[in-house]
């Protein structure tokens, strides 16, 4: 520097000398400077004009494009507000399904590294994130180092609101503490421990939660990729789905910062007619049955291939409970952990056989697909003897059968002539002898029913079948109801033999929902309702958006016939095949059913009991189906269906405040383990029903928390 300066001074001295010899005319010099500066000012003027033209040309040439670009980016850069999927509630408001707000945890590598550059706090930041969210430190560090410019990496899902707040408050307090101690100690800020608060961000979304686990899973369905599948989730997907909102930022005219929010429109809540308690009773009993009877006949298999129970309000078509086995948990629809290994492998074997699969993954998928099917609405089977109920009702309603008719059963019936003669046996091969109509149903006599069928004739039989809804969808509000139209006979396909087998419920297929709904019309005075699960739609504020009223499909039989049928069905439980279905203290009616399949070299059964309660004023219909029970004979199977029905009604009827009208026998006490409260009353007789009621009233109070399910007229 010094040298340079020395050189410069030397040069300046020379300049001074020069200045001495050549006098500079200040006027001339000044003029040149002015001229040159003027030239430059002109150059800048030209440049500025070019710039104005450039701005103008950008606006003219690209203006429209860029305007669009700006607007479209705006949409992109604004934040989306997710909608909340509607909840599903039971009839008492208990939550069956709801959406909970949770967060995605998003890592910003770039900002972490900027923090590292500025404060050297990457370690502290990563440690804090890893500790709070239970993540692997090494993974985070590696990810950041390998993707230094990435600003959006979801590192954890389903972070709860509490976790989010705890993290945010935690780092705020820690940093505050650091700053405070730095200002107190004058020791300077420990920048390395200062946690980078922009390292992660949270993005909210909703997660579908089924608080009661597997309860009513088949009815509810599940949600995958924010789309409802199966059950109510699938059927009411549009109603449950809302619309995403958006948040935009802008400045107002007076330069205030404003955010405009186009709120998300949340989906509607569904209020169903399902009663969680009754639903739970049904599911518990079904599960208990299948566990108790596992391995009974066939080793390594549960108590049945399928078991289903539906309870329907006969006067409205509302479904109060719909349960089936096997079941799944919609929180985790592919989870099979509730089944033991043997059950899982038998389910896998069945699926592999049915769809002839060999790959494990395909089998898993098939097992899941089978599980997600609701046995009550999506699978069909032969109804068996419960079908006799509909034959008899048709006979009475057409006038072909009268209460006073007498039928003779010799153990079989032969019809047709010569080589085309067909003989069909009664299940009692020795014959039931002489039977009244009532007895025919009570004893479930095939021959008597076939004879009735001959009187009804093919045309009326098919007409009534259709009127009851067989072969037609019930249009219940659950996704994927099975269509059985090809599984029933029509005028063309029904010959004499087909008519004969149909009279006692074999040869055609039904779904459970069809059957119980048809049975409801028999006991409710003859009106067929459309079954439904949802009773109303509400918005998130609880305002009713839509009420789903009972919908009459058609009148099927007359009130007189209905009354008559009720009598007969009571007879079945009182003294016929269904005595085991009688719940203690109650009088009910019903019909047992057994259908036989023979296929794959073995004989299998579908056993069922279809009933109503209470006897004097039917309120509910219950239908229990055990598909391919794991039992050695059909007789045991039928017994199990009745017992399952009894066990369910034993709990459901008191809960529903149905008064007990019957004396509980000692046998029942012993068998069903009922405490002898009646003996507290010295003179128990048929006349002391009112006292008995008082007792049962007390008993039912404890079982009941939600109030009466069905309000009986006159009460």
């Amino acid at each position, binding site marked *: 520097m010094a040298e340079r300066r020395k050189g410069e001074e030397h040069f300046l001295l020379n*300049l001074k000398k020069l200045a001495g010899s050549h006098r500079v005319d200040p006027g001339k010099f000044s003029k040149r*400077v002015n001229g040159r500066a003027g030239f430059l000012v002109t150059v*800048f003027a030209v440049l*500025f004009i070019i710039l104005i033209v450039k701005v103008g040309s950008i606006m003219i040439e690209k203006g429209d494009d860029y*305007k669009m670009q*700006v607007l479209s980016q705006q949409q992109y850069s604004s934040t989306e507000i997710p909608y909340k999927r509607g909840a599903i509630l039971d009839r008492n408001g208990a939550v069956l399904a709801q959406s909970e707000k949770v967060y995605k945890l998003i890592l910003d590598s770039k900002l972490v590294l900027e923090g590292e550059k500025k404060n050297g706090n990457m370690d502290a930041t990563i440690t804090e994130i890893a500790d709070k969210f239970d993540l692997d430190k090494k993974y985070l560090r590696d990810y950041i180092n390998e993707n230094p*410019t990435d600003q959006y990496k979801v590192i954890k899902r389903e972070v709860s609101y509490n976790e989010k707040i705890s993290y945010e408050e935690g780092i705020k307090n820690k940093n505050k503490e650091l700053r405070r101690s730095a200002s107190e100690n004058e020791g300077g800020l420990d920048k390395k421990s200062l946690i980078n608060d922009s390292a992660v961000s949270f993005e909210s979304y909703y997660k579908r939660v089924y608080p009661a686990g597997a309860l009513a899973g088949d009815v509810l369905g599940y949600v995958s990729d924010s789309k409802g599948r199966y059950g109510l989730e699938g059927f009411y997907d549009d109603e449950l789905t809302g619309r995403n909102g958006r948040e935009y930022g*802008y400045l107002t005219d007076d330069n205030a910062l404003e955010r405009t929010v186009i709120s998300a429109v949340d989906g509607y809540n569904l209020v169903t007619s399902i009663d969680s308690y009754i639903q739970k009773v049904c599911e518990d009993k079904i599960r208990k049955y299948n566990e108790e009877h596992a391995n009974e006949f066939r080793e390594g298999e549960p108590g049945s291939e399928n078991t289903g129970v539906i309870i329907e309000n006969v006067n409205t078509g509302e479904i109060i409970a719909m349960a089936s086995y096997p079941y799944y948990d919609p929180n985790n629809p592919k989870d099979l952990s509730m089944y033991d290994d043997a059950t899982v492998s038998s389910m896998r074997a069945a699926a592999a056989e049915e769809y002839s699969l060999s790959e494990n993954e395909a089998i898993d998928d098939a097992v899941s697909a089978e599980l997600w099917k609701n046995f009550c609405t999506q699978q069909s089977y032969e109804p068996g003897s419960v079908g006799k109920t509909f034959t008899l009702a048709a006979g009475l309603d057409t006038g072909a059968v009268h209460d006073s008719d007498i039928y003779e059963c010799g153990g079989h019936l032969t019809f047709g002539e010569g080589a085309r003669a067909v003989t069909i046996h009664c299940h009692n091969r020795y014959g039931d002898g002489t039977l009244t109509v009532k007895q025919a149903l009570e004893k479930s006599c095939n021959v008597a029913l076939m004879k009735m069928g001959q009187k009804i004739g093919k045309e009326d039989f098919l007409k009534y079948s259709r009127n009851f809804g067989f072969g037609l969808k019930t249009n219940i509000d659950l996704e994927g109801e099975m269509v059985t139209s090809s599984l029933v006979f029509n005028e063309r396909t029904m010959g004499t033999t087909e008519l004969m087998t149909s009279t006692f419920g074999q040869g055609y297929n039904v779904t459970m929902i069809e059957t119980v709904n048809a049975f409801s019309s028999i006991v409710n005075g003859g009106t067929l309702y459309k079954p439904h699960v949802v009773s109303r739609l509400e918005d998130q504020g609880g305002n009713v958006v839509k009420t789903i009223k009972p919908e009459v499909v058609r009148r099927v039989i007359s009130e007189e016939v209905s009354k008559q049928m009720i009598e007969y069905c009571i007879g079945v439980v009182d003294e016929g095949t269904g005595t085991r279905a009688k719940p203690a203290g109650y009088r009910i009616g019903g019909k047992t059913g057994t259908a036989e399949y023979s296929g794959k070299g073995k004989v299998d059964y579908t056993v069922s009991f279809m009933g109503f309660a209470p006897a004097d004023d039917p309120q509910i219909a219950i239908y229990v189906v055990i598909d391919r029970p794991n039992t050695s004979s059909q007789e045991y199977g039928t017994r199990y269906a009745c017992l399952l029905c009894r066990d369910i009604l034993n709990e459901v009827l008191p809960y529903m405040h149905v008064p007990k009208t019957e004396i509980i026998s000692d046998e029942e006490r012993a068998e069903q383990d009922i405490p002898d409260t009646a003996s507290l009353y010295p003179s128990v007789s048929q006349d002391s029903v009112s006292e008995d009621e008082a007792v049962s009233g007390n008993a039912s109070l404890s079982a009941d928390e939600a109030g009466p399910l069905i309000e009986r007229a006159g009460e």
Partner: protein
Amino acid sequence: MSKSPVKKRDISLMLSLALITLGLLIWGLFMIFSSSAYNGGAESADTFHYLRTQLIAEFAGIIVIMIFLTPAGKWMFEFIGSNKFRILLLMAAAVSVIMLKFFGISVNGAIRWYKIPGTSISVQPAEFVKIAVIIYLAGMVADYPILGRVGRFKGYLTLFVPPLILAGLVYVITDNLSSAIIIMGITMLMIFVTIKDIKVHAALAGIVAVLLTWYLSRVSQMEYSADIGYRTRRIMVWLNPEAHLRDGGFQPLQALYAIGSGGLTGKGIGRSIQKLGTIPEVHNDMIFSVICEETGLIGAALLILVFFAMIFVMYLIAARTVDIYGKMVVLGVMFHIAIQVSLNIMVVTGLMPNTGVGLPFISYGGSSVLFLLAELGMVFLVVKENITRHV
């Protein structure tokens, strides 16, 4: 005593310059608030943060102008340009840049600032270097008008080399190419008006043009990768911003979007969409794009015309100044402002790669506006002297 028409003209020039300056400052404050309120609010929950900081710097600048208008200011003005002092001034400027190595603070990866302890004020020595160069050149030319007639390179080098060393320091130490370019730009224009021999200027301009063309043609053929220097990358981004959105293409492209979406009359003051966090650091170098978006072509053209008016008024002042030192200082300041305005608008409109030059008096930046006002203070002093001369 009646005022002479000559004196009247000087007074009107002074008033014009004052009005234009004030107008620009107020316009700038409006735009800074309009464009930074969102970011200020988002970053520190203080929508007035940027506005307040800028106002403080501007008040300080106006106080500096006032000081220049006192007799002490006049003495100081002459002293710093004097034969003895100006070398010292250059050395002080060099030291201020070198000391950044030890005391400077780093912002966005580059060390360009001193932080005044105990405050949030930071100062950029590059701004100081610009003033020092203007004063050095003006002083040299005033003391040795013969320089203007020295043939070929001798005189040229006397004037050219010290600023070149300073510009080199600024570039190497603070990694601030734009300031270095501005320093050399001021130097070359000041030399251009001084040295008579046009061939020297032509030769130098030719060399610069050839180098630039060669460099650009090379860059345009290169494959983009993270290995090449960031300045080269910036040029590639400039050539094709859409292809490099994640690597610096975003800001200039968004600025273009803002300009394009303004139309003839703009969206209205305060109605820019792009400033809402879309353009990074919009209140700094890219503020012209928000002006275009909000006030359209009319506003943008008006602003450019006001800048030209400012330059033209300064030219008139310089032309009417007899004292060579004063004349050269006014021209230096004029060149500084003209170059900076041109560079900024060329960057924003995509005519040049992104360099990081603020728009004088408008862009946010306390250091910049304070030194610019100090330069104007010297211009005002010269006008004041002109007025008193014509009593």
